[in-house]
């Protein structure tokens, strides 16, 4: 039982990270129907933003007060990247055929990866991420279950970010504007909503959460490299589709489900009968996880929580 609870905790931690990134895919898709494949790289740049802030501005201190500044550095880097990316790579293609911005997104993704690899000092190999007091260190023990400090940080970050995002979308004028644009951009424009601004806000919102996720990933894994965006982006995109693309609650639920399934699959596929256990354990977990994903989508193509995309035929 302890083992099950332990893997549940691991899964929720991993899932929270996916959820933080998945929100970025879903918000942007909800507004402009673009799968922003470069979003994984925004997350990666967030992590490097935090590391850069720590190495160059904070004098490599490990006391707890540097954490908020690192988060600000991460968010600044990721949001800046996302806004510039929207302005120069996506806005000129706003009315181009759907495939053009998709390919652009892949191009931006490769560009950002290579830029970090070439220009960030030492980024050609893994870089150690600072271990900050209080949020890293000896784990808490709850019965037989170990809860790491960085895991707590990730989950709490997700809860706070999700709450703030919900308040923003549902309680502010700008947020209402986003809902309006996602339903019908042309009518929204006629009603006096600045659609371009709404789109920038959507990109920025996703990037803020991705920046926070970058810090969380660094603290959890104790290292980052320029490739982390690819796998995390793929998983988060999957989470967004699993939850129902365009649906913010769906992204959170999808992320958590994906993380938990991954952790449980790692643990329990080792005990598969009929010699199938050779296909168990950590290195096969993605195979099982994605097989489950395909099953879910076969029976519920709109995702767990239902997609919120207006059909604009």
């Amino acid at each position, binding site marked *: 039982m*302890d*083992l099950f609870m*332990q*893997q549940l905790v*691991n*899964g929720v*931690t*991993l899932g929270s990270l996916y959820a933080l990134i998945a929100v970025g895919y879903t918000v942007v898709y909800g507004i402009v129907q673009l799968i922003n494949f470069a979003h994984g790289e925004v997350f990666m740049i967030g992590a490097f933003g935090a590391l850069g802030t720590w190495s160059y501005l904070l004098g490599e201190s490990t006391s707890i007060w540097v954490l908020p500044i690192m988060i600000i550095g991460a968010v600044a880097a990721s949001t800046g990247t996302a806004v510039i990316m929207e302005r120069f790579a996506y806005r000129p293609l706003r009315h181009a055929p759907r495939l053009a911005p998709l390919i652009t997104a892949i191009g931006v993704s490769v560009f950002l990866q290579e830029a970090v690899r070439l220009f960030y000092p030492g980024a*050609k*190999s*893994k870089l*150690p991420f600072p*271990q900050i007091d209080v949020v*890293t*260190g*000896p*784990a808490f*023990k709850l019965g*037989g279950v*170990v809860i*790491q*400090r*960085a895991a707590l940080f990730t989950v709490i970050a997700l809860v706070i970010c999700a709450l703030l995002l919900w308040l923003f979308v549902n309680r502010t004028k700008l947020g209402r504007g986003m809902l309006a644009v996602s339903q019908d951009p042309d009518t929204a424009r006629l009603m006096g909503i600045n659609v371009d601004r709404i789109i920038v806000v959507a990109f920025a919102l996703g990037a803020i959460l991705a920046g926070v996720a970058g810090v969380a990933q660094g603290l*959890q*894994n*104790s*290292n*980052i*490299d320029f*490739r*982390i965006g690819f*796998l995390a982006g793929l998983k988060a995109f999957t989470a967004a589709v699993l939850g129902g693309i365009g649906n913010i609650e769906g992204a959170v639920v999808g992320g958590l489900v994906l993380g938990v399934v*991954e*952790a449980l699959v*790692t*643990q329990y596929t*080792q005990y598969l009968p009929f010699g199938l256990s050779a296909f168990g*354990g*950590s*290195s096969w*977990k*993605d195979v099982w996880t994605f097989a489950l994903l395909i099953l879910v989508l076969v029976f519920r193509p709109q995702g767990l929580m239902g997609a919120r995309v207006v059909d604009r035929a």
Partner: protein
Amino acid sequence: MPQRSLIRAGGVLLAASLALTACGSRDSGGGSNSGGTTTKTAKIGVIAPLSGDLSALGKGIQHSVELAVKQANDSNAIPGWKLEVYAVDDEGKAEVGKNAATKLAADDAVVGVVGNLNSSVSQQTQPVFAAAKITQISPANTNPTLTKGADAANPKRTYATYFRTCTTDAIQGPFAAQYLLANGMTKVATIHDKKAYGQGLVDAFTAEFKKGGGTVTSAQTINPDESNYQAVVSAISPTGPQAVYYGGEYPQAGPLSQQMKAAGLNVPLMGGDGIYDPKYVDLAGKTSEGDLSTSVGAPTDSTDAGKKFLADYDAAKYAEPAAAYGGYSYDAANAIINALKVSLKDAANAKAARDATTTEVGKVSFDGVTGKVSFDEYGDATSKVLTVYKVTGGKWVAAKTDTFK
């Protein structure tokens, strides 16, 4: 029409280049022969990554060979002959290595070669040197198949011209198992990255560990492309291991160690020479204290001969340090030089001495800086000295050097 003229132009170019290469080879052949009226010249090749990520190791190999050759020339070790070093770059890549080896083999003055650094590159260069009958001694290849062939149960020497001065992975794993058992650790979990090196280490470790009465509490694998191993750590924690043996390299091992300790699994992680790197300690952080690794040979600065080698190396003021394989390269070069003392004595030219050099290298036996240098019937070093290193104060420190039994 334009097509036909293109073909004609191509034909002319081809003919011209053929003529040029023919001239080239005749020139170099003549050069090495006419160069030896009073003192003849023989070259020792160096093939190693001299550029790229691994160049620090490669340059150390090059300079160590240069040092050995310089000392041999100074002491006039081979009367009537002058030795030269001919270094080529393999970039740590198999294809590049093959071309570089071909370049060395084409030079008639080359009698022996030190290199390569990477096992995967040597796999490609072995047949090239074998065909040219040039002796090749690697200072760093640890893959067992290079000498004993793919079938470990029925070892069969692959190339008569290939030797190595370092020991292999086949004894690193068992050596680690013996060390842990000797230190009272009988319950160990294993993890590897499913790559040939990692899996081989863990298999060899597990066999020896079980033979010695130990229990493997859990055998897991990780995906080297990922950086979060919590699910695996949680799977092995409840089985209560006293240590974790990891087969793989430091980019995964470092974070794995850190995540183990953060999850409350406070036992040492042990690995092979793939994790014996300062970067491991960077990645694993403060909690890596007490983690273990094995590496081939004794630390160079632990023996008198090694200290003298390092002092001579410093005195020669090379741009790069001797690095991890300097001592092995120096010994490899000296093995060739010792063989040349016999094989070159009555040889008309360097090329004629190639076969005899291989035979003589097989027979060498002298005290080198890394211990006794001699080779068994497969071309492996007979000295099976390994060292266990332990992270102490944020650095790898030699904990125990011993001969594998």
